């Protein structure tokens, strides 16, 4: 009796399976054929009521069927799965050239990106990043850097002054460079010193394609025994390679800043034309990117360092200028217009 029932169950199950077209129907079939309330399960449960001989025979057949149906289930699943895949590959074919879904557009400002690259180059050489006030005392911005009041060197930097602040040294202004921060640091620290001072600076100059009144600068300072102009060149060489490629060459020429002596200007060979001459380097083959020099003896002495034992070098560069060179930006004013069509290019 149970053997016949098993055959009937098998036949019904097999027939039902061929009608299954999808996963949902397969699940329905599984529940009907092998679920708790299915005939097969009833058979298996009622095995206990049979005699030992019959139990052995019926049990064996029932379990065999269960295994068979389990396998059939698995195979059917795989078949359905393969069919689904094939369906996707043919009728479900897509045009891969259609635009992608929009993703949120998160970006750092190109000046921030460039600033970070510059910081990285120096951190790699053991420099710490030190920030300071943008609203500064005349003393730190000028006097302490050997630019006294009424000195013609002041003409090289047009300054914004703050109303209501005191006279001379205690006068407040918007810093014209971040060098004041180097003085502040040296006042409170002894050599060895390796710091870079990034930050916003301000010059009271009319804007044009190569001039902005708000400029992000990064000034570099190192003070120790045994530092020379050659170390300055080496340090800046690393910066140049980091920013403009490992093939870069650097060149110094004499320049003048009140807080260094000797003072130099550094140029890189043009990274666009490899020094051959092009529009970017104005046919010179070289591009000037920063001013630098050996910290003036008087400043070191004022900081309490013996200038015959300690020497230092300093350098200052404009981050926007570097960004313009790297990205090929034609007008510096783009940076602070914050037009998304510009910002989203970087």
């Amino acid at each position: 009796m149970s053997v016949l029932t098993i055959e009937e169950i098998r036949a019904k199950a097999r027939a039902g399976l061929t009608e299954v077209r999808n996963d949902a129907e397969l699940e329905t079939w599984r529940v009907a054929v092998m679920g708790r309330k299915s005939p097969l399960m009833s058979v298996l449960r009622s095995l206990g009521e049979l005699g030992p001989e019959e139990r052995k025979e019926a049990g064996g057949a029932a379990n065999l069927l269960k295994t068979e149906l389990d396998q059939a289930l698995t195979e059917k699943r795989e078949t359905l799965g393969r069919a689904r895949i094939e369906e996707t590959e043919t009728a479900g074919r897509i045009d891969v050239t259609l635009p992608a879904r929009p993703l949120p557009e998160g970006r750092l400002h190109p000046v921030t990106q460039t600033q970070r690259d510059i910081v990285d180059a120096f951190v790699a050489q053991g420099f710490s990043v030190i920030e300071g006030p943008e609203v500064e005392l005349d003393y730190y911005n000028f006097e302490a850097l050997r630019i006294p009041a009424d000195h013609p060197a002041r003409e090289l930097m047009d300054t914004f002054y703050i109303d209501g602040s005191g006279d001379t040294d205690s006068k407040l202004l918007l810093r014209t460079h971040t060098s004041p921060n180097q003085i502040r640091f040296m006042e409170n620290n002894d050599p060895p010193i390796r710091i870079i001072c990034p930050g916003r600076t301000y010059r009271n100059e009319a804007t044009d394609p190569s001039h902005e009144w708000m400029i992000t600068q990064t000034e570099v300072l190192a003070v120790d025994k045994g530092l020379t102009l050659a170390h300055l060149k080496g340090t800046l060489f690393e910066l140049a390679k980091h920013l403009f490629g490992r093939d870069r060459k650097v060149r110094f020429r004499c320049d003048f800043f009140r807080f260094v002596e000797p003072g130099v200007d550094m140029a890189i060979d043009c990274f666009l034309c490899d020094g051959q001459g092009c529009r970017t380097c104005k046919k010179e083959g070289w591009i000037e990117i920063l001013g630098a020099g050996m910290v003036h003896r008087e400043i070191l002495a004022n900081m309490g360092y013996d200038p015959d034992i300690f020497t230092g070098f300093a350098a200052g560069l404009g981050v926007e200028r570097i960004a313009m060179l790297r990205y090929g930006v034609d007008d510096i004013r783009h940076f602070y217009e914050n037009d998304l069509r510009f910002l989203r290019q970087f």
Partner: protein
Amino acid sequence: MRVPIKWLSEYVTVVLPVKEMAQRLTMAGLEVTSIERTGDDWEDVVIGHVVEVQKHPDADRLTLVTVDIGGDENFEVVCGAGNVAKGQNIAYAKLGARLIDARTGEKKKLKKAKIRGVVSRGMVCSERELGLSDEHEGILVITSAIAERGKPLAEVLGDTVLDIDMKPNRADGLSVVGVARDVAALTGETLREPDFELEAAGEPVVGRARVEINDPDLCSRFTLAIIEDIRIGPSPAWMQEVLLGAGMRPINNVVDITNYVMLELGQPIHAFDYNTVAEHHIIVRRAEDGEKLTTLDGKERVFTSEQLLITDPTGPIAVAGVMGGLATEVTDKTKTILLEVANFNPVNIRRTAMALKLPSEASRRFAWGIAPELAPMASRRVTKFLVELAGGKAGEGLVDAYPVISAPVHVSLARKRIAQVLGVDPSEEKVVKSLEALGFTVESKTDRFEIGVPYWRRDVLGPDDIVEEVARMVGYETIPAAPLAGRVPPGVPQPIRELRERARDILVGAGMQEVITYPLTSLEVLGRVVEAEVLEKAAPLTVVNPLNVGQERMRTSLRASLLETLARNLRLTKECIALFETARVYMPTSGALPNEEEHIVGVVTGSRLDRFGNPTDENIDFYDAKAYAARLLERLSVEASFVAHEEYGLLSGRTARIDVSDKCVGVIGQVHPRTVKEFGIEKDVYLFEIRIADLLDHVPPVATMKAISKYPAVVEDLAIVVDRAEPAASVLAEIEGHPLVASAQVFDEYAGSQVPEGRKSLAISVSYQAPDRTLTDKDVAKARDKIVARLRANCAAELRS
């Protein structure tokens, strides 16, 4: 400083091609910013000899000029100038020459033209047409001795001019001789000093003029010379030519000579009409407050007591170092010149020139500082020219008031200093030769060099200045690039900076665009986002000399800057825009410096996009802004709560303050429609602001892992009915307060007919989990009951059936 090569060549032989010499000068610190060639475009312009001048048959003011350029035929040219005459050498432009159109200023090719019926073949040029100056009244008459018919004009008048950007340390470079010195030293040539030889045929000067320096702190030297029998007239062509090349307009022989010598030696000169100076007696003194003088430009000036004047017994006659007076100037009637060549305090002259708004070549040189040794030399030079070119008779000697004689400067340079600074050690021979070429005297001692500094190098005061001179001469290319070596100092932590940089990255990662805006704004714009009382109590710092209107105050809030930037970009797009900036605001304090607080402000607006990036009808809202703010805090591992709040400029009922440990670190909300309108925006805008310093103490240095349970969670949904005004946060707080609740999330909010009036239903998905066992249905039920009881008691909540 414009240096014509022809002039430079007077003092040094230019052995290098111009470009290379310019390069050497630039490398040595005299930066050549441009090399201009006059005559570059004079290809088809040659010297022509005027053989005939006839009247034009049909036009009164025109003439027919026959020009011989040494070829087979002569050319007939129609000319409109009044000064053309037979026998002159002129500049003849052939057909096809590129000349400047005198009217438009543009370059044009010369074409054959018929002028009032007569064909004009070529042109007789004026200075303007050749690009020499603006002079177009008459034609250029060439008086040069080397002019020959047919010779290209470029060979006669053409020159190359170097434009050098001098820096204040090389005051001696503001002279052609100064530049020549560097050229000589750099190219191994010898300097040819100007000729100071002079025949003084007149009476001694001493006795015919007097000077007193009342304020020697402001005037270090004052010399007077007398030249009589002067005939004012044009200066010779060669002088006019170099003056033009150097950027000065020729006026007459006297003016030209003083300008020439000023540019040649770097010492300004002033000429008085001898007979207009009362008693021929000059007193150099500070002005009295309110003293007046009419200067050369016809303006009456009023002086203050710190300004230095040149006076005679009747009163002021000139502003020292800046400008002469009208009454004593040299005119056509002047017969005798009283020549002033003096030296003044640089700071004082600079201040006076700036106060009177009279910057000039003269005041610039005084402001940069001149060697007092130059005064008598320049005086002789001018006198010499006046004798030779203006028919003058020079008085013998000089009146020379020189209260404190300038001491020669001496520098002791330790030998090892050179290598200590430069990192290279040039040989002694190289060092000595380099310095001597520049005019220094060098005495070699065992461990040092004793160096005498030439009087014109007032910038060299110490050993490092000498080291720079050595570097300039041996060349910076000999300095190697040595890798940085030495002790690496301990790192200096900068917590605010590090937090700010992390915040930037988190917001960018979440999809916000960083902007960087100007910190200067106006009170009006700030007033849109900061309450008037607050602005009054803590008045934003004012810039005395702003560049633009509307940029006079230092911002005390970033909100306006972000809204302005948003407004500008909204004109271009309808899509969702999320902008942020991390920057400082400048809060006034009672101390010397303002408190520069770092803030982060983000603004969000726009529509959601569909699959193709097109804006849909669905707008972004408060919860989008909250997404960014919440992400930032979460990533910094800061536990924050958003609490309903009122804030100026933000819409009531849609504003929250952001609290961390009960301290407010920022705000978030919809920008008030009225405020948004003031910025020209017509959409809903959402803003958040977080103060970085306030956040700093609550940011753990690192995240700490929370244990992950091995046992499965049971998740069920609860519908909790509460009053409309009950914040979802308090319901969640009660639920999450139960120890078996791992998390609870709101996934729907419903207020409608299914729920009593004034109430709402929050659908909350609750996840129950134990760290040590699998929870049974009974455990969950027990927990649920407890939660519901607490909700009923504390939030007047009911479980919805």
